[in-house]
């Protein structure tokens, strides 16, 4: 048996990823442009275990388009899309981040189920030695959310923290790294 390579360990993104022209791309938060008629605004705050905002975090999102299509060779469905699906936003001094995107469609699972519309989230920051992953679900999808295989496996008392909160012309999704209302995080 040949020796297969082992994976490279993760290390913290550190405090300095936001160098000029660094990881925060100018168009990072804009998954879709302002001309997109169905654009939604997603905003939130990254909060640490002391309840303080995290001003040096990096939030990334990955999602399907409005019809549940993904631009990727490993999506075996016939659908195609030019939707970028990826967003990246550094948190500001108040720990706040935002994205302009579209609400994704539901997705089929290999076992014949359906996943409710959701956005995958990666959180990176100084003081985090590995990324953590969570998901954003939508408040106007109660029936789909109730049968979503991931959401329904979350402790019922914590489920609501994965559902974005409707605000005037936006959805709010705060991420709490610790505490009584710690956001549920996932191992992928």
């Amino acid at each position, binding site marked *: 048996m040949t020796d297969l390579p082992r994976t490279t360990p993760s290390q*913290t993104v550190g405090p300095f990823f936001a160098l000029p022209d660094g990881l925060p791309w100018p168009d990072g938060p804009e998954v879709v442009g302002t001309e997109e008629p169905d654009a939604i605004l997603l905003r939130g705050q990254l909060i640490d275990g002391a309840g303080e905002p995290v001003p040096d975090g990096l939030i990334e999102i990955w*999602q399907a388009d409005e019809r549940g299509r993904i631009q990727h*060779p490993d*999506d075996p469905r016939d659908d195609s899309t030019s939707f970028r699906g990826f967003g990246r936003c550094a948190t500001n001094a108040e720990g706040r981040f935002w994205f302009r995107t579209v609400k994704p469609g539901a*997705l089929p*699972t*290999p076992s014949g189920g359906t996943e409710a519309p959701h956005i995958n989230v990666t959180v990176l920051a100084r003081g985090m030695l590995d990324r953590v992953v969570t998901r954003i679900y939508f408040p106007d999808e109660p029936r789909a959310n109730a049968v979503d295989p*991931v959401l329904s496996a*979350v402790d019922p008392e914590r489920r609501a923290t994965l559902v974005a909160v409707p605000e005037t012309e936006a959805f709010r999704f705060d991420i709490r790294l610790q505490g009584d209302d710690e956001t549920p995080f*996932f191992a992928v």
Partner: protein
Amino acid sequence: MHSRTPTNTTGLTLPSYERDDSSHPALATPEYGSTRLRAPQRPLQLLPQNLTEVTGPVLGHERVGATDHDLTVQHGGEPLGERILVSGRVLDSDGRAVPDTLVEIWQANSAGRYCHVGDQHPAPLDPNFSGVGRCMTDSEGNYRFVTIKPGAYPWGNHTNAWRPAHIHFSLFGRAFTQRLVTQMYFPGDPLFYQDPIFHSVRDPRARERMISRFDLDTTVPEWALSFKFDIVLRGSAATPFEDEEDEH
């Protein structure tokens, strides 16, 4: 190709990616003080690898400018410091190349100072060095940067704490599951022993995988030393138990 879960009534077959938790540091690592308020404390729930997880952003060459791979030519003059080449392959843990994937790097200058408003280290900035690079891997997973060797820098984690010289790397691979942010170190750094970030990886063999290798063969005579650094992302789950697990 990756291993696939068995076809079923849906006809939707997806790749699956091996878990590699043993390679990675624990989020809660007390020696690294900033983890105290930032490491989630509840157990992580296992996320099934469905469509959103086994796909990932296809970020093309439009993200990469002509001089993005050469951090020594991004300004009017050459940066000060020791010019180096940093190159290697991006692979998965099946040994397969990861082609056409975006590699992003950032680093301090040769004096150990980042070109960042938050960096308070009283070392000089270099007007000819921004410290940011990008490139795409080629069809065989190869990448290559020209840069200068970053300096060590002090930080406030403990008394007289210094980070070993390092270059930050960010990789996407081809799937959300493969996303990796890491740091590349240099061989023989005398600062390793006191660095809690390096030592947050508990397995010494895994720590070795973050250290680049000096390579005389690709060192360019009269011009630049060469360091090789291969990066391994998660591959398919090729364990003997996989089929069993999948059949239910």
